[in-house]
């Protein structure tokens, strides 16, 4: 088994909750190269011929298996774009955990742009979790620009959890999805920015099949001088239902921009969007302080609950 140094171990813990490489299929990418891999009878991981990324192939009928593909970067000044394609066969039930942790103590900018494409087969269920984390006190920036494309076939269900709580200086997240008949996509995004960080998150979900549905939920906290932009577009091209929700807590001198967009091209498309931006409510602070918490402790509890 691969020996990880302390920084690598910490990054791995932050992005994948892993102390060591897990059971089952995985691929660990560290400082620009694939360094460790494991496959199972049902899940194969193959490097792309041009070296630009990996293909993950999950056999039809694979149930209760997981794939972990963490990326960790501890060298300063590294920039990379990686293409990962997931082919999930019909009737699967799998969990995919991705994530990127950057530790940048140097002066050069570190950037990882992961392009993930998911081809989800008929009646399959996929749970996808992606966590971003940055650390390091160098002047070099930590940049992550993930692109996620999802193509869901009939009756499939995908749940995506995107988390970025700490230390990423700049993010542009782009997510696109196309859903066939009876497919469902649920997205939970949790984001916290501080300092002078910027984060842009753009979703475009096309509900192309009858009875397809989506729920895109973003909860975010913007502190200090950070700027967040959330754009969610739902296209209703068939009798379908879609809901987008952006809920943000704004603090200090931060800025939050929410741009919801609904595009209904079918009379039976039911689309809803909600957006709310506001500071922490005074009565919430007062209530928690009346339980004996200091104002700062109260604020921490409110934020951590909000981003749960």
């Amino acid at each position, binding site marked *: 088994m691969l020996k990880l140094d302390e920084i690598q171990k910490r990054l791995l813990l932050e992005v994948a909750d892993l102390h060591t490489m897990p059971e089952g299929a995985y691929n660990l990418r560290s400082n620009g190269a694939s360094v460790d891999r494991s496959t199972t009878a049902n899940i194969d991981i193959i490097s792309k011929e041009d070296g630009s990324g990996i293909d993950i192939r999950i056999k039809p009928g694979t149930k209760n298996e997981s794939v972990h593909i963490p990326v960790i970067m501890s060298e300063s000044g590294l920039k990379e774009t990686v293409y990962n394609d997931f082919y999930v066969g019909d009737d699967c039930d799998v969990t995919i955990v991705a994530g990127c942790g950057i530790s940048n103590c140097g002066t050069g900018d570190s950037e990882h742009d992961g392009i993930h494409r998911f081809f989800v087969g008929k009646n399959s269920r996929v749970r996808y979790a992606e966590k971003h984390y940055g650390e390091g006190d160098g002047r070099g920036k930590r940049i992550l620009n993930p692109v996620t494309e999802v193509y869901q076939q009939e009756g499939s269900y995908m749940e995506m959890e995107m988390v970025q709580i700490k230390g990423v200086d700049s993010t542009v997240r782009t997510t696109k999805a196309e859903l066939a008949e009876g497919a469902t996509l649920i997205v939970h995004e949790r984001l916290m920015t501080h300092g002078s960080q910027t984060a842009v998150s753009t979703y475009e979900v096309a509900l192309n099949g009858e009875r397809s549905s989506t729920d895109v939920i973003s*909860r975010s906290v913007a502190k200090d001088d950070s700027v967040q932009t959330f754009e969610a577009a739902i296209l209703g091209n068939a009798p379908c239902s879609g809901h987008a929700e952006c809920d943000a807590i704004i603090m200090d001198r931060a800025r939050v921009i929410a741009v919801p967009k609904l595009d209904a091209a079918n009379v039976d498309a039911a689309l809803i969007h909600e957006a709310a931006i506001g500071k922490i409510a005074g*009565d919430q602070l007062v209530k928690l302080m009346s339980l004996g918490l200091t*104002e700062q402790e109260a604020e921490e509890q409110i934020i951590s*609950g909000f981003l749960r």
Partner: protein
Amino acid sequence: MLELKDVSYAVEEDGEQISIIDGLNLKVEDGKFVVITGPNGGGKSTLAKLIMGVNPVTSGKIYFNGEDITDFGITERAKAGISFAFQQPTRFKGIRVLDLLKLAAGKRISVAEACEYLSKVGLCAKDYINREVNASLSGGELKRIEIATVLARGTEFSIFDEPEAGIDLWSFGNLIQAFENIRSSYSGTVVIISHQERILEIADEIVVIENGRVAKQGPKEELLPELIGTASAQNTACSVLTKEA
């Protein structure tokens, strides 16, 4: 013991000073079950907030167990042993009932302990323990969870600001039951702001606040008969409910 000495509270509106509490003096003895009543706009809820430190007094002093707490903030008063159930409980996205009870208890508590507090306010614990304290809860549910947080704190002094306000009739009967339970099992001092006759009935002592001052204070047996039928002791539609049941 809680003592308020010559306490005043005024707000400024359009450049004019409006007096809400006006030179109020009040003593609440340890272990007593006191109901504060009086006409609307008399300053009852403001008084409760002055005791908790939600609003600062304009002048006067507040002593708790002999200590001057006039300049204490909310957190310090909470730590000194005062709890407060708000008239309009706040909602929290993402914070569960169990989390709130844990924060109230100030320590890790078992699910069984948390359930006990919920049972005391008439909520079926397993249905609520993992629910978020958000808009999905009704006013009555929220109110009872609010009371449970005060029970979980277990402090020596608790104030409940109009616990019956904003809850439906059906919840009202349960609420009275909850306070009767508190009455029999809680050894600390309880102050309830209310003008419901059925809450006044379980008091040791009644305080009537009018025009920002204590108009009357005395044992229930003495004061309740003269209050019945006035705005200070309302017997609302709950009696209709009792008759039909």
